[in-house]
């Protein structure tokens, strides 16, 4: 907990206000002290209000003082909460074939525990959504087994209560956003004043307060995704499954959501497991503990697991020089050069990434962009 406090102080000192406020909210929730949580929500509201009004730094400095005071108060009451990781889902060689369709999902096994984030990546139409729908109990599997260790003797109703699935196309909801959130909290057994407090918290945490009294038609698709996340989080699921949650978000929102998901998964208040599919490989890889690459229904690669297929170093490179020149420069080495129309992909067995980059600079190749994708699923896209 003290580490968290130091982290928030550091964000405040370096002007990472938005992140600091979000983390302050998380910290307050984890301490589970209602008055302090209310204070954190008030600070967050003031912060968002001042952002809206373009207030000067005086307001910010006032908020900073309040935030530090709250942090000190939180530190005083912060208990030591030992964190135990619990298995949430055990998937054993599940497969699925659609009736009358050509596509089939080959046997896939995985396991997820609380606070784990698993990313599922792959090209369109290769089975990501099918896998996620099977895991959430929406789609029947043909073989294999799915266990939900937290709900022994589970029926599908309990499973769906335990597993929240957010599809890519979020189904339309009706009524005011806030009413929907209160309803979700109420369904999860959060009643009375605590319900209102948790809804306020979630509105602030996902920056939805100014949309609280709007309806579906009046908010953008990005906010709909955020709203859906807020709604399912209030429902307190053990496992959260998101299908392409980043699809409707701008680059800033993508990073904010991914960061938030990471923090939410590892929250000591209500840690949960998250499985998400996305096309944003690098962003997902940054937050995910494990990434599954799926191609034509098969899991070809899982990050963190040894693979015999492509042990070489691979980097992505953008340069203004011609391909022939580039090939000639690396003619004497084992470096393979491939071009996908945008980037060059350089792969080598004898060089590691650091050496490869040094080599590129030593040959005075003008570089506008490069990325080490040796351990990324990106190398499998071609």
């Amino acid at each position, binding site marked *: 907990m003290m580490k968290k406090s130091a982290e928030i102080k550091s964000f405040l000192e370096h002007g990472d206000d938005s992140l600091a406020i979000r983390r302050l909210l998380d910290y307050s929730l984890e301490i589970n002290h209602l008055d302090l949580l209310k204070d954190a929500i008030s600070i967050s509201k003031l912060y968002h209000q001042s952002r809206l009004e373009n207030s000067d730094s005086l307001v910010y400095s006032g908020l900073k003082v309040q935030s530090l005071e709250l942090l000190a108060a939180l530190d005083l009451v912060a208990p030591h909460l030992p964190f135990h990781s619990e298995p949430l889902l055990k998937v054993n060689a599940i497969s699925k074939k659609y*009736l009358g369709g050509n596509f089939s999902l080959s046997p896939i096994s995985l396991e997820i525990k609380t606070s784990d984030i698993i990313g599922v990546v792959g090209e369109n139409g290769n089975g990501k959504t099918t896998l996620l729908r*099977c895991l959430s*109990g*929406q*789609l*029947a*599997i043909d073989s294999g087994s799915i266990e939900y260790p937290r709900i022994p003797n589970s*029926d*599908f*109703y309990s*499973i*769906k*209560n335990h597993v929240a699935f957010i599809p890519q196309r979020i189904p339309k*909801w*009706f*009524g005011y956003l806030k*009413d*929907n959130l*209160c*309803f*979700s*909290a*109420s*369904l*999860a*057994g959060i*009643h*009375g004043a605590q*319900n*209102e407090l948790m809804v306020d918290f979630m509105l602030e945490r996902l920056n939805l307060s100014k949309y609280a009294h709007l309806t579906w038609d009046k908010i953008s698709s990005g906010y709909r995704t955020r709203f859906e996340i807020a709604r399912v989080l209030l*429902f307190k699921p053990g496992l959260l499954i998101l299908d392409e949650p980043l699809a409707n978000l701008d680059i800033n929102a993508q990073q904010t959501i991914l960061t938030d998901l990471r923090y939410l998964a590892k929250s000591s208040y209500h840690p949960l497991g998250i499985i998400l599919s996305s096309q944003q490989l690098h962003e997902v890889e940054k937050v995910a503990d494990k990434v599954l690459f799926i191609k034509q229904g098969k899991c070809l690669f899982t990050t963190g697991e040894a693979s015999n297929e492509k042990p070489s170093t691979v980097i992505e490179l953008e340069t203004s020089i011609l391909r022939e020149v580039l090939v000639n420069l690396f003619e004497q080495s084992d470096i393979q050069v491939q071009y996908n129309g945008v980037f060059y992909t350089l792969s080598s067995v004898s060089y590691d990434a650091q050496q490869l980059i040094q080599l590129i600079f030593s040959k005075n190749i003008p570089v506008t962009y490069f990325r080490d994708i040796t351990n990324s699923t990106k190398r499998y896209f071609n």
Partner: protein
Amino acid sequence: MKIIEKLKSWFLPKFLMKFDHKLLLNSPVLWTSRAHLVSWLGLLAVGILSLIFLTIPNDPRHESTIYLPIFFILVASIVGVVIWLIYLLRFNVFKRFGTYTWQSMLGSFFLMFVSLGWFVLFPFLPSAIETYRADRAYNSEELVLETERMNFLISELMYDSLITEFSRDTLFVCDSFIQAENERNTYTVENYLEGSINICNREYLLRKMHDYDSIVSLGKGYYALLMAPNYTFLNVSNAQQYFPIKRLKNLQFYNLIHRKYDPDSLTQWRSEFGVLREKYASDEYYYSNSYSQYEVNNSLFFDTLGIRSIEAGLANISFRKYLWRGEAIEVFFRLWFYCTLALTLLVFIFRHTTTKIFFLTLLVFVLLMMVSGLLVAFLSLDEIGIFNLMLFYLIIFFMFLCLIFKSTRKNKIQGISLNIFTAVIGFLPLIIVSLYNAIIENRYAETPLYENYYEMFAIRIKIAELSGILLLLIAIPAIIYKAYRKWYSLPVE
């Protein structure tokens, strides 16, 4: 949106909105039903409608004009149901996989019934208020006594035109079957036709004597039964049920009219009759088949005193005043109850199944009706056959329903079976009792039904109706809840 908000602020007080918010935070099942809002608005609507129908001019003597308002209220009720459905269907605890116990399902069913009950109730309101107004305007005692008085006054005022001839029935009294048979061969036996002869035994004659005003022996076992002319020109039989008086027999009334006739009192009687006519006469002309003998003999008889208008007025008053009494209330209650129950079952099923399966269920139901119709026609099925067919369907649907508990995938047929089972299980006792009644009627087809058959029939139907409700309320937690929970959450193919 602004209009809705404005309407909300007009009709929904702050305390109710606070209560609504409290329900949202604490009891999602209660909140989603919106029964509290419907009940409040229902009370308001009842109040407003009552005020309108109590204040608008409405003379009980005239023919009722409430049919158009009833139509408009019915349309408004349908619009109300649609608006309620829009709000109801926004939130669904069951489909969101929230904490949904069998108590929640039962409570949800009850609250939906209450909400829909209000909407079904509104169209009944105008007629109930009309009854209330007629009841306040005229009481049964004055109706009965003043009608009697009017009959007396009419008779005295039209004294010269009164029929004075007695009607006559002839009876042949015999003690043996052979004697009766001999007489039967001689005369046509027709009851109640003047000049015809009834053959009977002595016991019958003694019993019959009380119904007639006079009996004259014609000799050789023949008797003439005489009846004084009927001077009951106006009648309020409904009122007499609620204010029974010992009415004079025809002969007593006949004697009274003739004894009391006094030409000097005619002016006073005319004026008294004028006051009563003013009180009861309607603008309308009421043609009844009664007293046609007067119409034939003297068409001016009724026109002179405006009796037909009084008759129309009394009929309208009687109709309005006694519409909501006795058996009619039972009929109205049944109409309200079954309309509400049918709508509740539809909404209940829609809330617990997928949209696709709901509409498929409706389609299957219609197709089943058509197929059953063809079966009934081609196999010449009687009532027993039809009820057996219904039971057969129910068993089949129940069997498919049971398969849900073993199923690992969502199955359309099982879903449809579950929906139909839910819709008809409450009517199972009624089907069984109707089948039993049909069997009894079939057994007594050649002979008269036993004496209290129809009383027993009514009691059996009532028991079946109550058992049906009970069965539905038991089936919800015992089967329906578990089946829907399992079926809805199953993964699809």
